């Protein structure tokens, strides 16, 4: 490995996107431009989600008397939305199609950054405000039907959500499937959709549904299994993801190095996010365990 690649490693590790100019300064075919990706099947839903939320916030702002809530959740939502855009539309997506490492960063952004932020913002209410009135009532009614409600409740309980999200992560990282997703655009969309959807369910379950202690436990388990998957990928002496790492050479990495770095991204930074969330949940759990007026009165009954 030479110094140029050393630069590459550092910047990849620490600055992700900031590394781009350093990575490609050798006049490869892609050096001049990092194109944005405008896949209508991706851009349209993201744009709608952004538009609806903007419209909804404006309408909500006019009626509500809780501006602070709106501002906080707005910041969360837009940060989440922007990380989704940077993962799926910005040049990062283009890079992800060429380098496994960037693809992994993209996935971590979708699953461990965008999803929890959007979930924290609880945007459904605002979305509804963004809809025209008849549609709003229709959607609200649909959401309240027993089937939808029960399905959501069943899925977003702690254990099913953790299992579902874990299953999505492990199944898509089967080398054959992962490689297929890189070459088949339909599968690729499906992959990102299932990552994001299961991540939203997972984070919803952790943040809003589960008891804090259980949430911490599920987050810890998720940290453990994603770290192990990352470690498996990072430590494999064979290139398992053939077509995903095919182009690594153009970027100054061997395919094996690309795979190792990708695994490392999942193992390290990915794991830290889950671990951090788990610790935050535990802290809330412990700190709140004697509050709420229940304790003293009920013990001394």
């Amino acid at each position, binding site marked *: *490995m*030479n*110094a140029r690649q*050393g630069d590459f*490693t*550092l910047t990849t590790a620490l600055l992700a996107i900031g590394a781009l100019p350093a990575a490609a300064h050798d006049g490869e075919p892609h050096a001049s431009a990092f194109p944005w990706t405008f896949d209508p099947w991706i851009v349209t839903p993201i744009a709608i989600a952004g538009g609806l939320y903007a419209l909804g916030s404006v309408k909500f702002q006019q009626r509500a008397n809780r501006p602070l809530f709106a501002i906080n959740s707005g910041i969360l939502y837009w940060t989440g939305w922007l990380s989704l855009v940077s993962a799926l539309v910005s040049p990062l997506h283009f890079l992800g199609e060429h380098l496994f490492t960037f693809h992994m960063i993209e996935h971590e952004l979708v699953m461990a950054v965008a999803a929890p932020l959007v979930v924290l913002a609880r945007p459904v209410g605002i979305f509804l405000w963004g809809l025209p009135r008849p549609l709003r009532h229709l959607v609200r009614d649909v959401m309240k039907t027993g089937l939808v409600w029960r399905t959501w409740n069943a899925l977003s309980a702690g254990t099913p959500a953790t299992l579902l999200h874990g299953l999505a992560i492990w199944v898509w990282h089967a080398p054959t499937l992962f490689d297929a997703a890189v070459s088949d655009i339909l599968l690729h969309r499906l992959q990102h959709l299932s990552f994001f959807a299961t991540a939203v369910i997972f984070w919803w379950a952790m943040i809003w549904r589960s008891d804090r202690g259980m949430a911490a436990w599920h987050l810890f388990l998720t940290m453990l299994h994603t770290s192990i998957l990352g470690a498996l990928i990072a430590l494999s*002496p064979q290139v398992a993801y053939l077509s995903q790492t095919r182009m690594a050479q153009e970027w100054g990495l061997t395919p094996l190095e690309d795979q190792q770095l990708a695994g490392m991204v999942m193992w390290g930074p990915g794991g830290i996010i889950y671990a951090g969330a788990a610790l935050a949940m535990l802290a809330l759990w412990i700190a709140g365990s004697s509050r709420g007026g229940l304790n003293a009165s009920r013990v001394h009954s």
Partner: protein
Amino acid sequence: GGSQSALDAQGYSGALLRDLIVLIVVVCLVVWIGVMIMLAWSLTRRRDGQAGDSRGSEQRLGVWVSGAVAATVLIIGGLTILSFQTTRSLDRAGDPDLTIRVRAQQWWWQFVYEDADAGSFQTANEIHIPVGKEVRVRLESTDVIHSFWVPSLGGKQDLVPGRENLLTLRAERPGVYRGQCAEFCGLQHSHMAFFVIAEEEESYRQWAATQRQPGAQTGEAEASAGKAVFMARRCAACHTIRGTGATGTTGPDLTHVGSRRTIAAGLMDNTRGSLAAWIADPQTLKPGNNMPLVPLTGDELRQLSAYMESLK
């Protein structure tokens, strides 16, 4: 002897690592002194009449503790970047000038100089390298895990059966550098040393040219007799002496054993006496090693050690 110390750095990597070690130790020393001052102050400070756990002082303590934790984060962040810089400097560009394949085994080192043009050759427990050149060592093990370590030249790297690891050495100054197996590898782990002799390009070339020659033929009668003993007494079943009928591969290649500084992986200096002692009773000198005790008469022993010594 020969230098074997991470602090006595004589190679490119060794010097980088020494600088890093010194720097980190200094930073940590400062941190430790800082913490000790805080500890001493907490223990000895004068306490006024009131117990000091009012709300305000608790908050002040909180600020201090948070500040100290933030400083911890900064320091370990800085040390991580320092380590990273060193790692990057260690992995320099460039193809190696020389490649040596290392096959570690219980409890000695086999070194193969791979050179398609000039011809490959083998040594044991001793390598010569040219000063200032990049030497790539390809590390393999034929039995258990060993670790290749020449502290004065650079860090260590394990030799794992079923895998190959790489390490690059570059000696900056001529000298004799001692290395030793650093991963516990069984009974005689302690006696698994080797020497790296860094010399100027010219003398390195001469040495390599000599090593490529078949084993020396001497006119000395005692040595010739020793050769006959070597062939007759099963020695040839395990050892190779190029240019003779001895082609065994279990033990070290003895073609130029007389030119080496030590025998039995750094156990003893290489003299006729120590050779004789070793051949006479290897199991007492290095219990458990794979060289069997071959019964010899006194004359045979003298002849054999003379022959070994003559293989310069």
